[in-house]
């Protein structure tokens, strides 16, 4: 059984290995100069956050154009890889045999079809996990200087903090969990639908939904977030709206925790309660002078912000928790496939 599964998945294993090898070459060629730039730049040894920020900005400015492109492509590849593995390896695993009508042949050897299913799931699933794992290992290593610089350079690029959706989903071990889940989802769709193209479409839709919904609704509940109260810096205000005679302020929190994932922030008054800021006409004037007067006036209110966030130090806790959840879901789906396909 193992032999047949290997024989059937040999071509895709070779294709994956070739793609990984090509990427490895590209990364090995560009990686050392990136490391050199990082080492000579001094970020690695800086301690003052202000110095670090300058050095990081410096590093980013010196980054070669190809490296910047490769960095973005790497993130994209890792975000897409699990879904693609589910669509192209998972969904056809059973449907291909159903459509070629080879199931009677496969199921009438002296191997129970539950075992047939389990071996196929296990072997090709591990292949998918290994592919995603190696991809992540290589790109995480190559990207680490840029990741560090971006996380040091300040909170403006909130999307690329280590806990943000783009980086968290494409670094270290989570891609392995996603690949396992997407693959099992694909096989499950195939077992239920029995036709390749509809199963592929269902896999793509299902996995895309999970991938988008997870960081928005689920991830922050895995570990209860922390709270911090910081002074509102009027310079960080980016939007003022007049609502029924009071003003709604939107401001980025002045937040010294590098790489933290800020979930929300609420403006409170000096007393510590949510405050109603009365409308102050200069804020709505639209002129430069008016705005300066407005911000000075807001500064005198001594407003503060309650920041709800996940500290960057929880990165690995999140990685392990989330990987375990996705691998667990994959195992549950695989169990369902085996149960569903049994002889009755």
């Amino acid at each position, binding site marked *: 059984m193992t032999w*047949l599964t290997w*024989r059937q998945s040999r071509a895709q294993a070779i294709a994956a290995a070739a793609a990984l090898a090509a990427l490895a070459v590209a990364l090995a060629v560009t990686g050392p100069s990136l490391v050199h730039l990082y080492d000579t730049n001094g970020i690695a040894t800086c301690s003052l956050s202000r110095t670090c920020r300058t050095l990081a900005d410096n590093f980013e400015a010196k980054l070669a154009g190809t490296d910047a492109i490769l960095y973005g492509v790497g993130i994209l590849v890792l975000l897409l890889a699990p879904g693609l593995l589910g669509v192209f390896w998972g969904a056809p695993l059973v449907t291909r045999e159903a459509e070629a009508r080879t199931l009677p*042949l496969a199921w*009438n050897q*002296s191997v129970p079809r539950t075992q047939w299913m389990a071996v196929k799931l296990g072997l090709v699933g591990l292949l998918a996990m290994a592919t995603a794992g190696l991809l992540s290992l290589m790109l995480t290593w190559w990207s680490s200087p840029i990741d560090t610089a971006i996380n040091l350079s300040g909170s403006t690029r909130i999307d690329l903090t280590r806990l943000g959706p783009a980086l968290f989903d494409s670094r270290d071990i989570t891609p392995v969990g996603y690949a396992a889940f997407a693959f099992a989802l694909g096989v499950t769709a195939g077992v239920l639908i029995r036709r390749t193209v509809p199963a592929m479409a269902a896999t793509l839709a299902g996995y895309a939904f999970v991938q988008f919904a997870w960081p928005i609704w689920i991830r922050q509940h895995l570990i209860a977030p922390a709270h911090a109260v910081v002074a509102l810096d009027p310079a960080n205000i980016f939007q003022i709206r007049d609502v029924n005679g009071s003003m709604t302020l939107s401001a980025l929190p002045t937040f010294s925790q590098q790489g933290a994932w800020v979930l929300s922030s609420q403006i409170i008054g000096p007393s510590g309660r949510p405050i109603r800021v009365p409308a102050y006409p200069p804020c709505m004037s639209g002129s430069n002078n008016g705005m300066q007067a407005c911000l000075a006036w807001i500064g005198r209110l001594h407003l503060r912000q309650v920041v709800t966030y996940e500290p960057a130090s929880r990165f690995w806790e999140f990685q392990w928790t989330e990987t375990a959840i996705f691998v667990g879901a994959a195992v549950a789906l695989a169990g369902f496939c085996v149960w569903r396909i049994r002889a009755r």
Partner: protein
Amino acid sequence: MTTVLHTRGLGKRYRQRWALADCTLSIPAGRVVGLVGPNGAGKTTLLNLAVGMLAPTAGTIEVLGSRPAGSRAQLARVGFVAQDAPVYAGLSVADHLRLGASMNPGWDAALAGERIKRLGLDPRQHAGKLSGGQRAQLALTLAVAKRPELLILDEPIASLDPLARREFLQDLADVITTGQVSIVMSSHLVGDLERVCDYLIVLVGSQVRRSGQVSELLAAHRRVASRQASLEDLVLAAMSQPAEPGGEPTLEARQ
């Protein structure tokens, strides 16, 4: 043990339509049984139920005394060639033999190798490039070399040209003479079945119309019809007649 296959009130429904309904029959061991009947009689459904590819909606089925595909041992005891003899198009002939060897503890590698050689199949050839007749023979090789007690063939010759059909039947006749294997094969080509089968079951609308040894059935038929009546005449007569009362119990009594 006298029966290889026994069903009681067996039925299989697809949504609203019954592909097989209330089918009760027994197939004796040690025979080469031809299962004939018009399209839609339920032959393929019956055989797929017998190998566990389908699950019954009603009734029971026992093959070699056990539930179809119920265990590893049961799978090893039954060989099956499905309609149109499916093989893996992307795998070579040699790959198929390796597949058989790795998935069947009772695999007879010598027999498989000898058959491939005798049939003139190139081991390196991809199965997708084989002719219909060669594909059927490769599928039969896989089913035979696992050394089953019962070989089930579903319309193995229906899609073959006359020459390939004759070669396949000749090959099957060799299988019959060399091994102690019971065979059940469905077909609507009665004339061809006559050459290899010694037992016949005529299935019409899930019901057994005639069953028995070919020689006895023919002798009985020739008494009421013409002396030259062939097996085909017999089958056509059985299919056009209303259900024969007591036809099926006769079979049970014979055992």
